[in-house]
């Protein structure tokens, strides 16, 4: 893909336009990465009790809600977050995907997805006993994201 940078004057807003023949998952992933580049200052914060903990998003397996609290799960621990799940979803990189009304999973850590008769999927992660259930409503998006995982792993 050819990359062209064009300088403009103050009278026009800065923007990135992608010219493509088809909106493929690769193009969508590229657009997401460009959008995230503009929001780098809004990194989510993690808390353990009254301590603020500094984690890389790549360590997070999934986010889940417990009543009105949101928790980020690593392989062996969980950290509270002081924001709503939908607010968090908007600020996350493209390798996170909504799996149910109460969970967002990182496709980088998904080990297996077992679909049940009712359409509910049991999602397990690498090197941990933790699991979450994914609802039927978000199943197609999750499958689509899993197919483009190599883009994020090699980014």
């Amino acid at each position: 893909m050819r990359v062209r940078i064009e300088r403009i004057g103050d009278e026009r807003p800065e923007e990135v336009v992608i010219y493509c023949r088809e909106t493929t998952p690769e193009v969508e992933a590229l657009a997401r990465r460009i959008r995230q580049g503009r929001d780098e200052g809004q990194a989510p914060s993690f808390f353990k009790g009254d301590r603020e903990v500094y984690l890389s998003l790549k360590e997070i397996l999934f986010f889940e809600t417990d009543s009105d609290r949101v928790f980020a799960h690593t392989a062996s621990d969980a950290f509270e977050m002081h924001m709503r799940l939908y607010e968090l979803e908007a600020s996350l990189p493209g390798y996170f995907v909504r799996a149910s009304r109460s969970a967002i999973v990182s496709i980088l850590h998904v080990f297996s997805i077992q679909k049940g008769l009712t359409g509910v999927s049991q999602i397990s992660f690498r090197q941990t006993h933790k699991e979450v259930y994914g609802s039927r409503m978000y199943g197609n998006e999750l499958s689509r994201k899993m197919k483009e995982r190599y883009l994020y792993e090699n980014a």
Partner: protein
Amino acid sequence: MKTHEFKPHRLFWAILILGGGVLLLLSALGIGVESDPFRIIGSLLLLGVAVTSLFKLQFFFTLVPLAGIAYLWRDPLGVPNLELWPILGAAALLGIGLSILFRRKPPFPVVIHRHGKTETLKDCTDCAEASEETVNADESVEIESTFGEQTKYIHAQNLKRVSIHSNFSEVKVYFDQCKVDESGLTIQVDGNFTGIVLTIPRTWTVENKTSTFAASVTERGLTSETRDTTVRLVGSLNFGEIKIVRV
């Protein structure tokens, strides 16, 4: 895991089964038993299930055995054309409907104060210790699931009790992120046709005091030599399995 204590309902079952044994013996000896002894024993066992379930207000397990008894005695009851599956189906649907209409009330209320609001929970941890108690959301957790699958990660920092109500569901509860109160933890289970997986730290000791029917409680995973927390598993489980996984 400790064994069950002697309770009145066990005496009831013991008498029922002993009665069945005596009837079989009399039948083998040709003394005084005119009807098919296996039909009598089957009816006695089903009646036992129905009676004990009625006391627990479990309508499904009251009506289905009664339907079985009606089928076994269809000729003396004057309905020789009674078919098994329709009568069982009718009993099952009636049982589920009644269970939804008349949910079992707790023997004592548990009141939770959560964000300024007061909620009353359907809960019974141990009827022998029944009393009114006020707990907060960091001490008590309630999980309900019907016809679905659910995972629940418990993050409470002073956990005293967890109530799990699960019917026709798969429920996985993770306790490895929580802290238990010094007085210990009670897990109350009310499950029918369900699979429940309890993931606990390997340092926990589980005292199983559940009453089960066509169900089992199994443990998996390595245990630690040091034990720091005692968990009492109470309640009832019918047609299901509780799997305790240590991590």
